[in-house]
């Protein structure tokens, strides 16, 4: 009999989905929807954090609850919560659709939570799809966007194609081993990973996660979708969705037990290509959200470094990287949401004079951008240190050097944003950005978190290490 206690956070989220569903059926009242979303997401966050110690198998072994999954659930939930925090001014979305917006967001969160715990190919596939579908639709929620549904459709086509490829890979893996349980696969895969069929199956099955993470050949949706989506949705895609992708990707690679040399080479290639392509493309961007999208692509490359090392530090590094990415990307989007007028897209120049209009935000942006560039003393540096150390332990000096070159390239455009925020004088009299007290506290919390993660990451790293310890057979 299923131990339902282990499943409580998911059940809670499901109930939250139900609440939003009923709100959808009622008359649209954005204020009420926002309040409900805040309360429910905060409650869920508390609940997931409280259940972080749970362990066990649910649903005949297809659903594994352990520290790894629970912490990831907490992370995903914080992504959701933070995104909801940005929704006070949800002017990018039609008023009548606010409750649906939260519904889909919540649904996507639920699916990602399921994803974090999935240890069966079927559950992985289903939860991945559910989370993606919600996002496809959310991307189209933007009010009055001139390109309409096209970016959403593009996102959809890429997502569906890569998940189909992934599914085919799953089929090959299942066909080779006769089991779809990760626990059973883990015992058998390392020995046979170099068989052509198994190898092909694995590479194909990773594509779905690469898509979520926006790794190089699967990244073309990112700029369009980020640009077209409401800011909050972009923030959600950049934070929670990435974290979930990292969670499952690490689980999948851990299944190979670090035995596949060819696999490692594929991953290295993707990692390098992803970093380089993302950074070079980002340099040409004027729109902040596009820029952040390409930087996401680049960061996917860095995360991959940690994952491809397939050692304890690499996994811990990837996990830590996910955490840091969430904080930093969220901070950037926080600024974008606040700086954007009425939910419009903004160019980099629109940040002009930010240091006067909202000093706290400007400081947060500064740290977030430095963090994204991987400079100390921010959390982004610690994350890079971890993945690079892991790569060095595998003897991949040159990979680290390439990555560091990319860091310098990325710095070019991050500094461009920073210059706009701190240096360029705004054309007109700058309109002060009203930053409410809770929001200011949120920004301060982000600042503290980023600096603390850079200067004193001891406990976070220990947590990441403890989480990934269970991934080894």
């Amino acid at each position, binding site marked *: 009999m299923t131990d339902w206690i282990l499943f409580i956070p998911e059940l809670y989220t499901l109930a939250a989905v139900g609440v939003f569903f009923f709100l959808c059926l009622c008359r649209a009242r954005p204020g009420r929807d926002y309040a409900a979303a805040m309360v429910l997401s905060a409650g869920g966050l508390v609940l997931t954090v409280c259940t972080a110690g749970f362990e066990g198998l649910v649903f005949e072994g297809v659903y594994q609850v352990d520290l790894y999954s629970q912490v990831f659930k907490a992370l995903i939930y914080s992504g959701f919560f933070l995104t909801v925090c940005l929704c006070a001014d949800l002017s990018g979305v039609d008023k009548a659709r606010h409750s649906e917006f939260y519904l889909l967001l919540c649904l996507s969160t639920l699916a990602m939570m399921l994803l974090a715990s999935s240890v069966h190919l079927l559950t992985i596939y289903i939860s991945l799809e559910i989370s993606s579908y919600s996002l496809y639709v959310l991307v189209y929620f933007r009010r009055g966007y001139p390109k309409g549904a096209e970016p959403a459709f593009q996102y959809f086509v890429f997502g569906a194609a890569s998940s189909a490829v992934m599914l085919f890979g799953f089929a090959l893996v299942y066909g080779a081993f006769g089991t779809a349980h990760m626990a059973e696969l883990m015992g058998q895969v390392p020995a046979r990973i170099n068989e052509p069929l198994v190898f092909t199956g694995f590479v194909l099955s990773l594509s779905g996660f690469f898509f979520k993470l926006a790794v190089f050949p699967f990244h073309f949706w990112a700029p369009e979708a980020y640009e077209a989506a409401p800011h909050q949705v972009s923030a959600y895609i950049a934070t929670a969705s990435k974290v979930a992708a990292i969670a499952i990707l690490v689980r999948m690679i851990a299944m190979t037990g670090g035995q596949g040399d060819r696999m490692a080479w594929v991953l290295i290639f993707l990692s390098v290509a992803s970093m380089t392509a993302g950074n070079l493309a980002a340099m040409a961007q004027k729109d902040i959200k596009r820029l952040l999208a390409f930087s996401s692509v680049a960061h996917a490359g860095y995360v991959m470094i940690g994952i491809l090392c397939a050692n304890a530090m690499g996994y811990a590094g990837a996990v830590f990287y996910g955490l840091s990415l969430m904080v930093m990307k969220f901070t950037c989007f926080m600024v974008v949401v606040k700086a954007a007028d009425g939910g419009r897209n903004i160019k980099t120049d629109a940040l002009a004079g930010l240091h006067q209009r909202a000093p706290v935000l400007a400081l947060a942006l500064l740290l977030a951008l430095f963090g994204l560039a991987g*400079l100390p*003393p921010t959390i982004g540096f610690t994350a890079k240190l971890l993945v690079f150390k892991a790569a060095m332990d595998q003897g991949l000096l040159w990979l*680290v050097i390439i990555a*560091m070159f990319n860091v310098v390239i990325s710095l*070019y455009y991050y500094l461009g944003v920073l210059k706009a925020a701190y*240096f360029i004088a705004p054309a007109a009299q700058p309109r002060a950005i009203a930053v409410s007290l809770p929001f200011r506290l949120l920004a301060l919390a982000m600042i503290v978190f980023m600096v603390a993660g850079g200067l004193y*990451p*001891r406990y976070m790293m220990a947590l990441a290490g403890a989480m990934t310890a269970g991934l080894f057979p």
Partner: protein
Amino acid sequence: MQMHAAQFPFLSTILLICIFGLALVLVLPKNSNAAVKWVSAACSAATLALSVFLFAAYDRGAGGMQFVERLDWIPSMGISYLNGIDGFAAPMLLLTGIVFFTGVVSMWELDFRVKEFFALFILLVIGVYGMFMALDLFFIFVWFDVSLLPMYLLIVIWGSSAREYGAMKLTLYLLFGSAMILPGIIYLAAVSGLETFSLPALVENASFSGFEQKTAFLLFYIGFGILAGVWPFHSWSPTGHVAAPTAVSMLHAGVLMKIGAFGILRVGMFLCPEGWMYWSPMMAVLAVIGIVYGVMVGLRQTDLKFVIGYSSVSHMGIVGLGFATMTVDGINGAVFQMFAHGVMTALFFSAVGHIYDRTHTREIGELGGLSAVMPAASGYFVIAALAGIGVPCLASFWAELLVFIAAFRVYPALAMISVGVLVVNALFMLRVVRNTCFGPLNDRWAHLKDMRFAMGMPRAVLAAAIVGFGLMPFLMYDLIQTASVPLIHSLGQAVGFAGPESVETLFTELMSVWP
């Protein structure tokens, strides 16, 4: 490397004072410019006092690492908060203290976004202090980057000509450097297999293969060398200096470039002696090219700041040449030169900055006869110029002397070239001094007033340091000696070094008769 336990965490106190000052500046209300300046000045004075104290209190007889502090930071990766100073670091701390204090004071007339300026400035100094005292590779890198980051904003917001270009170029260059250092650090930590980032622990316990040392040293040399203005990577330096505001130029040329050299010394030479030996001829060649190049390009400049900027390149070349000799003398000279050049350049930029503030030009051709209206200001300028030339009885004379003594033994031809070029440079500098301070007075400047005493004070401190250490070089020399001799000794043990073994040098004898 010996280590002595500390009684009181003096080093962390310096950092804490700065951090406290930074926090205070940040929480002060927006328009309290005077308060911000006073807080910064107090903070800088306190750290200056502490660094003077450390400089004096360093036990020259015992040597080794003193004032060591240690705190486990990230045990899982073997990272600890480990501070300590030796004979190399103590002069650098003193230098930082001096330049910090004088920099704050020379920006006293700033009235544009004051709070932000001083906040960033203090942040920069925190990084510099931290870098000089850190003994853990992780923290070395962290402080290194902390000191680089505010630079971009400092130049972009408060800079002068071509500031955007200059700032972007500078930042990208320097971060490119840090992009070489980080892999190097992690590489060494990984191949050592010791799970530690502690520099002393690595020096003691790790045995790196020749290849590893060569690779890592190259990474460090390029990475830190960019900041040190080593020749092919120097080009950020003149543009950056020119673009930066006065205090930043001072700190930058005075201290930051030393961070680069210090990094090569601390990380590269301590950890990879074999790599050092392998690459030393290249270092020497590049250093000499730097010297020659700096001088030659400097000759063609008409902007005073460019003149100083390029002379910095050549002066840092002297440091590099000193390192490349692999002798006690050479290292003594190089470290001494780091100190001397820091103080001298700071004075130079400070004086030029003052002149620029008044005249709004730095073109040599437009200036002239300033000594008539601004005797004090041009006096400092002249002192700085003379120090730059290496006139005896000024600090840099001893430094250059030491380096060239060592260089003549190891690389006679290169030393010959550099000395020749420096003579040319001296003539040129004298001409610059004449064109700016003496000769016919340009009527446009006739109404200018000389600097007040309070404004002159920082320059006075710097000038005093130049002259003081020029007259009493042994104060510095004894200190550096405590670190350089063990380093060369350990080099002998580590790689079977059989180069010029002159521990008892000509200069030591010279020193004994000097006072």
